[in-house]
């Protein structure tokens, strides 16, 4: 099944649930009408929250840049010894 079909099925199931709620009037209609808006807003909030949390906990590795510089120095030294010319042409 294509992924879009999966998502559409999910959306349809939720819609069906909502229509069901509207029909049975289990909760006051005025509330039920607003549910889709709540849903979209909470989806947006979830997205923003995830981006925010991800941004705050973004793993960085400044020490890796230093280690890499060391490795580069070592590699250059070795290649020079072996007579490999890697300097910009």
């Amino acid at each position: 099944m294509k992924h879009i079909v999966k998502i559409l099925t999910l959306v349809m199931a939720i819609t069906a649930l909502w229509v069901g709620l509207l029909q049975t009037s289990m909760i006051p209609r005025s509330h039920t009408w607003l549910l889709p808006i709540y849903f979209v807003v909470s989806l947006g909030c979830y997205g923003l929250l995830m981006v925010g949390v991800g941004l705050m906990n973004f793993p960085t590795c400044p020490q890796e840049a230093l280690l890499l510089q060391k490795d580069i120095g070592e590699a250059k030294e070795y290649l020079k010894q072996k007579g490999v010319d890697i300097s910009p042409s």
Partner: protein
Amino acid sequence: MDGQHQKPKNKYSIIVPTYNERLNIGLIVYLIFKHLGDVDFEIIVVDDGSPDGTQDVVKQLQQVYGEDRILLRARPRKLGLGTAYIHGMKHASGNFVVIMDADLSHHPKYLPSFIRKQLETGADIVTGTRYVKGGGVHGWNLMRKLTSRGANVLAQTLLWPGVSDLTGSFRLYRKSVLEDIISCCVSKGYVFQMEMIVRASRKGYHIEEVPITFVDRVFGSSKLGGSEIVEYLKGLAYLLVTT
């Protein structure tokens, strides 16, 4: 690896596509040999006709390390990343293929952890991830981080791919698996990496992750432009309807 265990007879073909990487290819080859001492491997450099003499450096490296360890499989001009992998794979004699960038943003010191993970789990694909503990990125500004996080959340929400880092390109593939998925991937650039892993995931291949760190291009300029975001969104939509 300790001597008690019988070492499986695996061979790893490391495909490195290059374009104007004269300096970096020398450094990366040295580092690969340094970190993969006791592993059977070969390096396949797919150079797209670099004008800076990348191929001359590779030939010199062949003199040092041996022509059977470093294979130069050049192409006449820039022909794209996807076809570079296919081209490299045609000449690969290993049963596993590693794909990595030549610009040193992928450090060869992580290669042993890819191999170990594969041996432990029997995975078809081991992909490097920057977004878990032990991984990380260096040299990105806030905007780049924001874009990256946004893109990631969007993809995770829409595609449910089951891997945390979709656009990373430091990966180890079982050769047969790579051959299988690469033939149906048509995207370019970042999206190509995403398409590969999503298609592999949909086909039910066993995918494992290892943390890697990513130090943005030390030499040379980074290749991220503004239109990349549009391309990314297009790619996301494409994957939604085709996978």
